[in-house]
């Protein structure tokens, strides 16, 4: 996996976000093993210390857990996983709302469009399969 | 280890080679040229205290110095570096001085002509030039150092030579000291001119009292004239007379020089008189071999049957009948025979076919005291045409 980082947000924050997305998308099953922080650093071409920091944070947020000196795993706690998903969705929606506020259109109309677009894309997606 | 083989190998080679080279050197010098004296006749005791300071040439022109005594010879090739450092190569008399009067001898020129010794004093005199202004000659100061042999304390004083005493250099030949008067025999050179002087110094007044010119050579005549002093060069004790000749010679076409009739003079320290010696015609050819000894003048004449010593007595100023020493002919032209007369003894060393003939005779009675041979012990180290030169024979006793 590779990630394009921006230089302004702390790298460890970006790493955590990256993990959340993966979880939300379901690439990571609950309880799945994740790469050691060294592997991670190597894969993402980041400083091991940063990877360490990211894992620490995620540990505190309960996203991952480590038993003894076993490799860390994604949490099995449904609640947390669910919250991650919601968090991302809400984030996205907030962003969306924020941008359409500027051009005040009635919500119904917008939703129409959204629905249409979404179906079309997913349709293409179907075909492409 | 094995990646160091080069270095190790080379070091081994270096050490072994250089090591063995010097071991070989040591060996070589062990079985080095060495001479010994073989008594053929007379009293062995004669050579007990003798030391012959000599040098030999073995082809080439390097002089190897060595000393020969009854116990054989010191070989000089094996001389260690340090033996050189302790003036081992200097004439024995000076080695003795340096041992006994180390401090007094510091920085002194080792030229017997500048020394005087009697039982209680050793005196050294030297002319020091004030620098070199060629042509006009240098001004000189005469320095006189005196060592009291008993108390071993030394004193010194200087005399500035008067202005007319200007020379390029002054070469001292002999010192004579009699009741407070120091007489210095010296040859002085200026622009090719040569003069023989007697400088008389008053020890107590510390001043130059008298400057006598015995002989003078103009620059042009020096080409075929020279002043020879026939006294024993190494004698530092008083001798009442100075025997010198103004030798005239001409060069033969083969480059050899031939003495032509020349004048012989005798100077008397006691009364500052110079008188010319008249030499019988038949002796003239030998005059330049004359030897002054005490009140006698000897003229050696080598002959088939040995050596004839013509004798002239100065006091009686007359010729007395000669002494003759008989021994097998030693006529030999490669090496002129060495002759020395000290303490009424005649020492003669002359080349013979199988070595060198060594003879000691009594010059009062004319009898032979000792006959022997100086031979090279190990022939293989010496070319057949080696030559041995005796510089001086010392008697350890005095």
């Amino acid at each position, binding site marked *: 996996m590779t990630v394009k980082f921006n230089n302004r947000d702390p790298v460890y924050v970006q790493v955590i976000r990256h993990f959340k997305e993966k979880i939300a998308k379901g690439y990571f099953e609950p309880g799945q093993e994740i790469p050691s922080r060294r592997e991670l650093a190597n894969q993402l071409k980041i400083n091991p210390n940063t990877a360490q920091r990211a894992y620490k944070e995620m540990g505190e947020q309960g996203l991952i857990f480590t038993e003894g000196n076993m490799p860390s795993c994604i949490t099995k706690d449904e609640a947390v996983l669910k919250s991650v998903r919601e968090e991302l969705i809400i984030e996205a929606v907030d962003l969306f709302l924020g941008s359409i506020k500027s051009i005040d259109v009635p919500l119904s109309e917008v939703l129409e469009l959204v629905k249409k677009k979404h179906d079309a894309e997913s349709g293409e997606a179907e075909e492409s399969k | 280890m094995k*990646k*160091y083989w*080069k*270095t190790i190998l*080379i*070091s081994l*080679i*270096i050490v072994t*080679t*250089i090591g063995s*080279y*010097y071991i*070989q*050197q040591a060996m*070589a*010098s062990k079985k080095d040229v060495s001479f010994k004296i073989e008594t053929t006749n007379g009293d062995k005791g004669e050579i007990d205290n003798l030391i012959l300071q000599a040098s030999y040439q073995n082809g*080439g022109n*390097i002089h190897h110095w060595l000393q020969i005594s009854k116990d054989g010879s010191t070989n000089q*090739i094996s001389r*260690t*570096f*340090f033996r*050189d*450092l*302790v*003036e081992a190569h200097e004439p024995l008399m000076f080695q003795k001085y*340096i041992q006994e009067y*180390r401090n007094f001898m*510091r*920085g002194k020129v080792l030229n017997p002509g500048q020394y005087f010794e009697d039982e209680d004093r050793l005196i050294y005199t030297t002319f020091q030039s004030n620098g070199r202004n060629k042509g006009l000659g240098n001004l000189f100061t005469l320095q006189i150092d005196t060592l009291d042999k008993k108390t071993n304390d030394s004193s010194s004083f200087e005399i500035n030579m008067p202005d007319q005493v200007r020379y390029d250099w002054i070469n001292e030949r002999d010192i004579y000291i009699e009741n407070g008067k120091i007489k210095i025999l010296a040859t002085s050179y200026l622009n090719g001119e040569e003069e023989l002087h007697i400088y008389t110094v008053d020890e107590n007044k510390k001043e130059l009292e008298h400057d006598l010119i015995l002989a003078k050579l103009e620059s042009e005549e020096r080409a075929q004239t020279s002043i020879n002093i026939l006294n024993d060069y190494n004698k530092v004790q008083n001798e009442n007379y100075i025997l010198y000749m103004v030798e005239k010679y001409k060069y033969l076409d083969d480059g050899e020089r031939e003495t032509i009739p020349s004048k012989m003079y005798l100077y008397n320290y006691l009364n500052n008189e110079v008188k010319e010696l008249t030499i019988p015609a038949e002796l003239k050819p030998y005059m330049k071999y004359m030897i002054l000894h005490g009140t006698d003048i000897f003229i050696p004449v080598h002959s088939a049957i040995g050596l004839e010593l013509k004798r002239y007595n100065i006091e009686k100023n007359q010729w007395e009948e000669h002494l003759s020493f008989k021994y097998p002919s030693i006529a030999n032209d490669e090496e002129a025979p060495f002759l020395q007369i000290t303490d009424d003894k005649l020492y003669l060393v002359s080349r013979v076919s199988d070595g060198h003939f060594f003879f000691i005779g009594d010059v009062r009675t004319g009898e032979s005291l000792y006959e022997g041979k100086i031979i090279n012990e190990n022939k293989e180290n010496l070319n057949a045409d080696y030559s041995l030169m005796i510089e001086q024979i010392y008697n350890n006793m005095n």
Partner: protein
Amino acid sequence: MKNFFKLLNFEVNRFFKLYLTLIGLIIVSQFIGAIVESKVYMDRTDQEMYKNQLSMSQYIERHGVFSFNYVFESEWFLLPIFFSIAMLMIYVFFIWYRDWFGKNTFIYRLLMLPTERITIYFAKLTTIMFLVLGLVTLQILLIPIEIQIVNSIIPTDFQSNFSFYHFSSFEIWGWMYPNTFTEFILIYGVGLIFVAVLFTAILIERSYGLKGILFAIVYGMVSFGVFFAPILLNELSSGYFYSLEVFLMLLVMSFIVLGSAIWIANHLLKYKIRV
């Protein structure tokens, strides 16, 4: 100590190729010399004998037998030696400057070795002496061979016997192969001091750049002065001291000069050296 030997070995290996060529040069040139010179001599002899109808003995009467000086004083023999000396002199400087100005600045590595830096100095110093003594040894080994070569060409009647202690009667040999081991040690000791002073001078230059050149020269002259002070002193005092005393003074001075050279070098390498 271990590191010293490693470095020594390393430095030796660095020069080794050049060293071999040098040795080869000497051997070839001197052997040719031995052959050529003896041939020339024989031709001359034959002509001479033929021209004036001389028998061997008569000829030897007049001209003497073959002398090894013909060989040992010929260019064939001497030039390669002088060349080698020159090479080694140059290498005294090269052995340092190559590490700075070489294609890769190796001095970085040397100075970063976990060992006292003065060890590098000692290693290089020993290397030079090592190379010198190597050639000295080579010459000792070659002489007998060359004598063999000559004697194989010159008929026995013309041969003169040659032993090693006559060897030291030629001037340069007198210096390169003194008569006694003591003198050998002393002479090459002086050589060592000379190289040490040069090394230190080089390090001064390396440490202070352009200014350094000036310092280096001054330092060199001072060392030289100190070293020869006793002799000078003795000259001025018109031989006041006996040779033994002068020698001892020289000995002391040499130790002072060598000691200070090493001390300065050590200080520079520790605190002042620049890469």
